[in-house]
Structures are given as C-alpha cells and as structure tokens.
C-alpha cells in the first residue's frame, strides 16, 4: 500500500525538528507543509483540535500529535530499520527517562534565557547549564546517547543545538566553555545528514528569536500600560 506521510511543521520549531530527524533516520519520504502560526490552517486545526500545535504527522490520513509521541510512533511503524530505542526493557526505560527529562526542562528553561533578562535570565542560565552538565554525565564517553547510533534522547535534544548561538548571544555566556562534551556530541550529530538537513542555520534562528522577544516585550509593555491606566 502506498504510504502517505505529511508533516505539518514550522521551520524553527525544535519539536518539528525531532520528527524530521526521525523520519530521515528511517528513510521515510514525506510531504512537509509549513504552517503560518499566526494563521493556522484548517487542516492543522482539524488534525490537532486539542492543542492546535505543530508538529502533526498525518499518516494515511490519520493524525499523530506531540513530538515525542510521533517519534515513538515512527519507531513502532518503521520498525525494520534504524531503531531509535534499544531492545532491552531496562535500557528502553532509561532512554525514555532521559528523553522525558529533556522534554520537561530544555525548552522552558532555554526560552527564559533568550526571552527574559536580569535575575530571571541569570537563574535560567544557571539552571540550563546544570541540565546540560547532567546530560553530559549521562552521555559519558559514548558517541551518541544511543551508543553508536541515534536514540530518542539524541533526537529529543539535538534540535536545541539550533538555539545555541541565540542562547549565547542573549545570555552572554559560552556553552562550549561550560559543556565541551555536549557541544562535541552535537557536532557529531550534525555530521549525519538526518540531523544537518533537519536543523536550520543558528543565525537565522537567532534573528527569529530576537523578533519573538521584541513581540513579547511589546506585549508586556502594553499589559503594564493597561494595568496602570486602571
């Protein structure tokens, strides 16, 4: 049966990147559809009515939502190649734990680094570096979190490498100085076409995040003015 695979995506989304990497690792052909997040398509709203967010994988007409759930779905369906999870149950649980840790921490804390300032930003930087160092410890001297191949932890985490320039510029710190092993791991990942073709240019991401920060500051300013007028 001919497979129809569509990915509703947005170029700068780390969550979208996870799905791109997983599909590329499995060699699955798909149609990528870029969403305008300020004007979401009827298809997106129909396929993800609960969260109305990308990424959404539409496989033979049926939607799968939430990036790490999509990644595990891709691994389950195309299970004859490039496994993203080991076969041993204990190692699987360990990989799921660390992928979940990345999911709980990196986006929210990283965002505070590029969007906020002052004490909030300082605390976020400290926390983010703490998370990166813990992940470095977990990586140890393995090539990838999955050993000699990518696993769901690599897939969950490496998209945030596209944020590194923005994090360093906004936060005024050097990630490679603090976490050299993590940066080395990210560069090894980038040697794989599945990763390098899925991540946008770091400078392009930086200008985009600066724009989001400008909009955020403008919104806060407008809210403050409205409160003061009351």
């Amino acid at each position, binding site marked *: 049966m001919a497979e129809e695979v569509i990915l509703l995506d947005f170029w700068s989304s780390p969550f979208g990147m996870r799905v791109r990497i997983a599909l590329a690792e499995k060699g699955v052909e798909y149609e990528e559809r870029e969403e305008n997040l300020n004007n979401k398509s009827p298809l997106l709203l129909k396929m993800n009515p609960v969260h109305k967010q990308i990424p959404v994988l539409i*496989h033979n007409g049926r939607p*799968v939502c939430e990036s790490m759930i999509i990644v595990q779905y891709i691994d389950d369906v195309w299970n004859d190649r490039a496994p993203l999870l080991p076969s041993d*149950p204990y190692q699987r*649980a360990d990989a799921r734990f660390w992928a*979940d840790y990345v999911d709980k921490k990196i986006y929210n804390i990283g965002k505070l680094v590029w969007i906020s300032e002052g004490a909030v930003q300082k605390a976020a930087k400290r926390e983010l570096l703490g998370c990166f160092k813990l992940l470095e410890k977990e990586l140890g001297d393995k090539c990838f979190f999955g050993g000699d191949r990518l696993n769901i932890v690599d897939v969950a985490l490496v998209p945030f490498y596209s944020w590194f320039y923005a994090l360093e510029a906004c936060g005024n710190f050097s990630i490679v100085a603090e976490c050299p092993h993590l940066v080395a791991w990210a560069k090894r990942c980038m040697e794989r076409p599945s990763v390098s073709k899925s991540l946008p240019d770091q400078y392009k991401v930086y200008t985009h995040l600066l724009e989001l920060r400008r909009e955020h500051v403008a919104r806060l300013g407008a809210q403050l003015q409205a409160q003061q007028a009351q």
Partner: protein
Amino acid sequence: MAEKGEVKLLGAWPSPFVMRPRIALNLKSIEYDFIEETMQPKSDLLLKSNPVYKKIPVLLHHDKPICESLIIVQYIDEVWSSGPSILPSDPYDRAIQRFWAAYIDDKWFPSLSGIAKAQGEEAKAAAIEQVREGLALLEEAFGKCSQGKDFFGGENIGYLDIALGCYLGWLRVSEKMNSVKLLDEAKTPGLTAWADKFCAHDAVKGVMPETDKLMEFAKIIMARFQAAAAAATPAK
C-alpha cells in the same frame, strides 16, 4: 513470575502516581514489596534511587531503579510480556493512548489541582469549568478508544485506564470538598460507568485509597500549605 525480593516499589498510599505501577504489577500478577516512603524526610534509598527528581514512585527490579510512573508502567508491560498486555499492539492505538495520557498529566490533572488552589468563588467556578471541559474531551476519547467495551483498553484495563483512573480518588475528594459533580451521568455517561468498573477491578480495588481517608489527608496537606503561605507573607 517474580522471585521474592526481586521487585520493590517505593511509594506512598495517597499518591495517584504510585497507584499506576501497582495496578500494572497486579495486572501481571507480580508480587512485590511495597516500601512506604515517609517523604518527610526523604529516605536515603529514595535519594539514591531517584537522584534527578527525588520523587516517588520508584520501581526497583533486581535493585535497579526505574523512575517516572508511566515509564515504569511501560517497563512492567515489556518485562512481563507473557501477562495481559497493558499497551495496545497497534502503533496508532499506542500513539492515541500516549497522547491522552500526556494530556491528562500535562493539562487535566493540573486543572483538577487548580480547584483547590483557586482563591475566591469566581476563580473556583472557572477552575471547575476547566476540569469539566477536559472531562468532555476525555468522554469523547473514551467513546473512540473503548469501542463500546468497558475500558479505554477494550475488554480489559490498559495504559490509558491506568493513566486516568489513578486520579479518581482525588477527583472524588474534589467533588466532596466543593459539593460539585465533576463526573456526571448526564454529561459524561461513558466515563461515569467506566469509573465504577475501574474502581471495582481486581487489580485496582486493593490500591485505590478510600475517599474519606484521602480527604483527611488532603485537609492536612492544605493546612500545611496555608501555614507555609502565611509564614511567607511579610507582617504588615
């Protein structure tokens, strides 16, 4: 099957998260030692077994720790694969159950906790409405997943039943403390019938705490919470 001492679970009776692996182990007929955590202070075993979060539940299998309730449930399903399946075998069905379990943990349970935290009548009413909206979504999901059978998992309890069902004790406490009906035969008939069957299931009834006992515990927690908030407020 498991040998004596092979499987231990660190937990506490009021925790819905701890209930999840207990139900899973019961479904697989696996005997385990339940080690009740005092939590104040946290035991050395807990701190050593879960250094990242320092939270319960932690499953210890041959003394190797597995953390995070739904990850533990998946582990139990994969290790004791000859017992009844907890996750469905079809990849799409698995994705759907994982989606709703994530929704329940990330959005719905926080909205339930929001009722207790709401200050004032208006905020409380808004919080209750949010919980009901979530239940309406879950009612629809139940219809699709159960396909007319008793549980989200079909004829038997599965992953999504465990993910949602563990919160039923706390849901009933919320209903009693606020004199509201959250599960309603008229608005959520499927979930209302499901809740009774879930709580009556052999794998569940021994580990679901009694509502009254939970309510006493909730009052102690809230008193502690309010005392801490009062202590933190600077004197005028």
